[in-house]
């Protein structure tokens, strides 16, 4: 298995931007150090022989949790909209959107 690239400052800045977090230079420094150690720890698994272990999609030994397709009443609209910062014509009112839906 090839050595993964160590986590760097640019990676943290990228992830922060994706999460809409604005970090100061000092914070960037601090989180790069902390996150690098977390990722390193996960890297310990590379030292183990996992050849015979199938990939795990979920830690619980449970599959197929399903419900029947039967409607049930949801929440009252007035109540829901009252909890929102703003609303108009039965809809949530949100700031101007730049660009389109992904």
């Amino acid at each position, binding site marked *: 298995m090839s050595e993964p690239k160590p986590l760097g400052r640019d990676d943290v800045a*990228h*992830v922060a931007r*994706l999460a*809409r977090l604005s970090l100061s230079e000092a914070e960037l420094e601090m989180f790069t150090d902390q996150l690098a150690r977390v990722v390193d720890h996960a890297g310990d698994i590379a030292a183990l022989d996992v050849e015979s272990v199938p990939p795990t*999609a*979920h830690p*619980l030994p*449970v*599959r*197929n*949790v*399903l*419900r*029947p*397709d*039967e*409607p*049930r009443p*949801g*929440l009252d*609209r007035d109540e*829901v*909209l009252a909890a929102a910062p703003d609303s*108009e*014509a*039965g*809809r*949530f*009112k*949100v*700031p*101007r*959107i*730049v*660009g*389109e*839906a*992904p």
Partner: protein
Amino acid sequence: MRPPAGIDGGAGDGGAGGAGGNRGAGDSATGDAVARGSGATDWETVVGLEVHCELKTQTKLFCCCKNAFGDEPNTNVCPVCLGLPGSLPVLNAFAVELAMRIGAALHCEVRPSSFHRKNYFYPDMPKDYQISQYDEPINVGGWLDLPDGSRVRIVRAHLEEDTGKTTHQGESGRIHAADYALVDYNRAGVPLVEIVSEPDIRSSAQARRYVTELRAVLVATGASDGRMEEGSLRVDANVSVRRAGTTAYGTRCEIKNLNSLRSLGRAIDYETARQIALLEATGVVDQETRHWDESGGRTIPLRSKEEAFDYRYFPEPDLVPLVPEAEWQARAAGSVGLLPSARRQRLVGLIGGAPSAHQVDQVDVVVAQGLDDLVVAAVAQGAPAELALVRAANELAADLDAALALDPGSFAQLLTMEAQGALTATQSKAVLAELIAAGGGDPAGIAAEKGFEALSQSSLAAVVREVVGANPEEWARFLAGEDKLAGFFTGQVMRATGGKADGKAIAAELRRLRR
């Protein structure tokens, strides 16, 4: 959504300078021809489609809210689809069943699957992520055979949830000039199956045929109502071009906002011409996502590859793996109804003999609209097949929602009356409109109410003789061979009978008198 307007099929007009050789290809009979650039070299269009199909379930994918189109905004919402803290998704078993039916109809393999979170910031999903299947989709591999004999391979057909609906508010109504947006979450969490094709499609015409056939398959499996105009079927197209005869794929662009077959065809033609012009001028096409501007008839860039979204997919911790047992898979596959190809054959079989070109079109329409069961049932109850087919392809298809609920018995009875000459075609259509509106009824009763007693043969003959006697000059010309005067006499007889006479019966009577 905007209704189609203007002339169908103009490709690349004005937009892509110089490479308009395949103009109109999407709608012409020769739409499969290799696109021709401005130079001597031929180009080939390569298209792969992503079709998003809303599933016809009672409830959403992960909560018990109603899955309904057109309800008052935000009346089908709950803590789960609003992404309120502490709420947990639970998978809808029937959505899984429908996904497996789609997989079976497309010859896919059902695999153990799992769900991921696709993270992005946009107010159409209150959770700030969409739950989708990523590296382990439920259906893998497969194909769809088109009526033209071509085969389009399917990469995957996976489950995911739909997003809410945003409306941009502002003076111009345009996204970039909007002051704010309003969001309705009724659609957030509605189950979707996304069907991804291999890049096996070679023209806009073939793309349209693929979506038409896929739509019919989805309707036949009971998975979808197939209503593109309501957004229950939405298409993204990956388009690239390459030199004819080469095998490597060119750089592709993804075209979004294709809300109709017409948009799909026009967008592919436009994009083909644009890319050929670019390649001939600069040799390079940038990989990017583009938006189809229906009124402008062009694609415009949304974002380039560099600013492509990084969705940070990760496994959805609140959902466990989905591993449908073999017995359930078999049950789902077994409940896939007759597929469109078999349905078309069944209708053709009812007509008996080789169908005319018109009848082939009628069969296509009737199957695509899901009206064929009704036609088959009506014919089983004595309706003449050809007449049932014509009425279904025209009158029933024109009022589809109501027509789908029509009682086949009433339909059969009406068509039998018409075939026996008890009603004229015009009268029959008027009665049919009432039957459709009411979902059925007694055609004889409705006809009587409307005063549609057919003229007896003898009274029709009397009226025709009367009209002939009153117009001796025209009659002499008709006898001398001026056939177009048949229309004049028909009109006179219609007027005299208040429209109760049958055009065919009048023609027969006129022929008889002329002999």
